């Protein structure tokens, strides 16, 4: 599908677009997933974001700014979606971590438990955690993206990690009790 019509219309433009967003697309999807916790909505959010990027490519002069631009755009798309439809939509097929995603490389139990714990975190805590751990942003950069103070980001990260540690302790206790 990579030689799709719109995309192949201008090879130089397509190449530039690929250069800007190609490597970011998987992490954009992951970011979208941890924002909305629904993989189908996440794919739609990424699609909307990339379509906007494609249309705005000529204005994306600073390639170093592409990553925060994409993140900010995706964030707004997500906010717009849920502001319009209110959070009740989150109740649909969203509250369960997909079974096949509860498994991956590494010790299955540990990954399952931790992923489920992240899934259960409040969105306010989940988002800065993802931005720091996967996207590699500092708290100052996260504060800029989320329009928060740096202190607020630090607090959220601190609480997120503490909650995850607590849930991991609980999981270990439960597992030890069974084992």
């Amino acid at each position, binding site marked *: *599908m*990579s*030689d*799709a*019509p*719109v995309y192949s219309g201008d090879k130089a433009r*397509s190449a530039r*677009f*690929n250069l800007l*967003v*190609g490597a970011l*697309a*998987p*992490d954009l*999807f*992951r970011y979208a997933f*941890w924002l909305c916790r629904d993989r*189908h*909505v996440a*794919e*739609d*959010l*990424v*699609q909307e974001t*990339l*379509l906007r990027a*494609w249309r705005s490519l000529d204005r994306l002069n600073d390639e170093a700014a592409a990553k925060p631009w994409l993140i900010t755009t995706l964030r707004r798309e997500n906010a*717009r*979606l849920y502001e*319009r*439809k209110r959070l*009740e*939509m989150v*109740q*649909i*097929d969203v509250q369960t971590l997909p079974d*096949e*995603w509860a498994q*991956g*490389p*590494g010790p299955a139990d540990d*990954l399952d438990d*931790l*992923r489920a714990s*992240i899934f259960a975190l409040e969105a306010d805590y989940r988002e800065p*955690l*993802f931005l720091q*751990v*996967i996207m*590699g*942003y*500092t708290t*100052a*950069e*996260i504060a800029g993206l989320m329009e928060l103070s*740096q202190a607020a980001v630090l607090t959220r*990260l*601190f609480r997120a*990690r503490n909650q*995850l540690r607590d849930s991991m302790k609980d999981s270990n206790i439960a597992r030890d009790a069974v084992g």
Partner: protein
Amino acid sequence: MNCLEFRKAVASGPAGATPDIAEHAVDCPLCAKYAADIDALNARLTPSLSVPAPDRTPADYISDGQTPLTIEPVAAPRRWYALAASLVAALGLAVGWRAFLMPDSLREAVIAHVYHEPNLLILPSDARADQAQVFKVLKSSHVSLNDDIGEVAHAGLCLFRGNLVAHLVVSTGNGSVTVLLLPDEKVGEATSINEEGFVGTIVPIGKGSIAVIGEEAESTKSVENRFVHAVDWSA
């Protein structure tokens, strides 16, 4: 650097790794342990946060989100619409501008959306959606049904032009028919779709519309009739 500065720097992320931090860690075992704990937790978080991403390139996303090429050369009709619209404006017939212009882009968006989920075009004939799922989707779309709509093979919520809408696939004796319930897409009149092997209609219903698309005209019309009678946006 004191302990508080150290901990803030460590917690602030990768760019916070400076020589000062390394020096402090050597002198302060408690802070060194704090940093090691964060590193260890991050190492465990990375695979957990890295959920599998779809195997789609940017090109896939873009092409899936646009009207396929075979439909794109509607440049000529678009020019015709523009010319016609100019004449209408010149004549001062300010009627139904929005209703006149919207269906074209809406029609393209509908077809693009159907292409976006190709797996739903090839559902087995005996596929049936869970009734509870159908109910949840309709409820979340603020839609109720006052009449039977037939066997639903799939019911899901989709992002469509900025709104979450119900995407249903109804089984018929002649294949599946896709129905998008679009409470936020008001159209002036019914618009036919006959492109790329798809036939169907975007039909106005009250404050919104429904898009009904299939591969065979008779079954598509039959499903359209059922939904026109059944859909109620007031839920």
